[in-house]
């Protein structure tokens, strides 16, 4: 590809929540801003904008990633998933989201989308994840409301539920 001029917008083609999209972005635009301001998906929250708080965590090619530490141009051709894709039906919560609600895993909800996107990967890759692994994944997120204990409980409950669904006879 030719050198892309700083002063202009350039197309970014990628897959977003299962759909092919083409957005326009300046080189300096962050993925978090592309999602929120250009595409209008405001579920991804923006906290610190230097990779510390984890609120903007999305999934890029199946792995959790900071949208604020990713340039929009870096996701060209990638598969990006945001919190909006967690539940197939907008009227329903995903099992992980429902567990957060049941266990009071959130209060203000600012950090929640990022945490959900990290835990969604963990529970998919390691269905038998225990407390330690969950805590390790949560270490990449700051929550100022809950004290984390209820988030860990919610994640453990969601993992348990997922295991039961996969092995109904056990």
């Amino acid at each position, binding site marked *: 590809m030719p*050198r892309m001029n700083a002063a202009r917008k350039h197309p970014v083609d990628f897959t977003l929540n299962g759909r092919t999209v083409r957005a326009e972005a300046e*080189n300096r635009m*962050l993925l978090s801003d592309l999602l929120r301001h250009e595409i209008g998906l405001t579920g991804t929250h923006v906290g610190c904008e230097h990779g510390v708080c984890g609120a903007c965590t999305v999934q*890029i090619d199946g792995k959790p990633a900071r949208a604020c530490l990713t340039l929009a141009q870096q996701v060209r051709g990638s598969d990006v998933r945001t919190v909006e894709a967690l539940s197939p039906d907008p009227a329903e919560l995903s099992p992980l989201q429902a567990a957060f609600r049941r266990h009071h895993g959130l209060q203000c909800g600012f950090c929640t989308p990022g945490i959900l996107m990290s835990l969604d990967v963990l529970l998919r890759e390691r269905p038998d994840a225990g407390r330690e692994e969950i805590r390790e994944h949560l*270490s990449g997120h700051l929550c100022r409301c809950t004290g984390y204990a209820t988030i860990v409980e919610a994640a453990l409950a969601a993992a348990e539920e997922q295991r039961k669904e996969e092995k109904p006879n056990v």
Partner: protein
Amino acid sequence: MKPASFDFLCPETIEEALAALAEGGGEARVIAGGQSLVPMLNMRLARPALLVDIMRLEALRRIETSGDEIVVGAGVRQAELEAWPSLLRDLPLLAAAFPWLGHVQTRARGTVCGSIAHADPSAELPLSLVTLGGAVSLRSRKQKRVVKADDFFIGMMATDLAEGEMIEAVHFPKARHGSGYAFREVGRRHGDFAIVACAAVADDRGLRLGIAGVDDRPRVFPLPALDDDQFDDAINDIAWSLNARDDIHASARYRRELVRSLGRETLKEASRCRA
């Protein structure tokens, strides 16, 4: 907190990347995973005129064994090396260091070489590379050169990388049979930058202790086999020889104390692993 504007290039060959870096001089920067560079861009501590994205260069995305070295290309993400099947056998020090290195979410994107290029004095990968006696392969349009890790890091976030050069790969010496390795760290919270991190190697050449977070770059010290009394003096000398400073995270005195206590534990663990 938004980056200043810059041109962006996704080269299709290394030659194209090197030509752009040569042309850009000091105003062009390589971007790989971006986990160190993008915070610097966001805070406008870095304002390059051109970013060269090397993540689409397949030739840089390899982990290879070459003789007694593991060669990690500039496009290899930290999580990819962490998941490399031979890590525990060939690079046990890195296997011990990875859990301390940022977070799952940053390791998924950040590259090994990017952390080396960033040269944070408290970072785990530069510390591991220096402690193992590794090297860095640099390449510009005109030449290739290999620099020993200890010579590559020259100060606080400062390296021997010249204008127009990029890191092509880093070389980690492969673990030798019967050697012991250990890594320990103290930070405020899991995944935070280390206040002090220690890496140790115990092999037939003796003990080596690497220390990050105290001086302006990772430092490594060989230690002869010592009995307990001599050991206290030796590690105390090391603690005082480092240019420890007070900052908001810890006092110089506390850092020296961590070098003594954490250094001792790390060396003991490496020696035990060897035995």
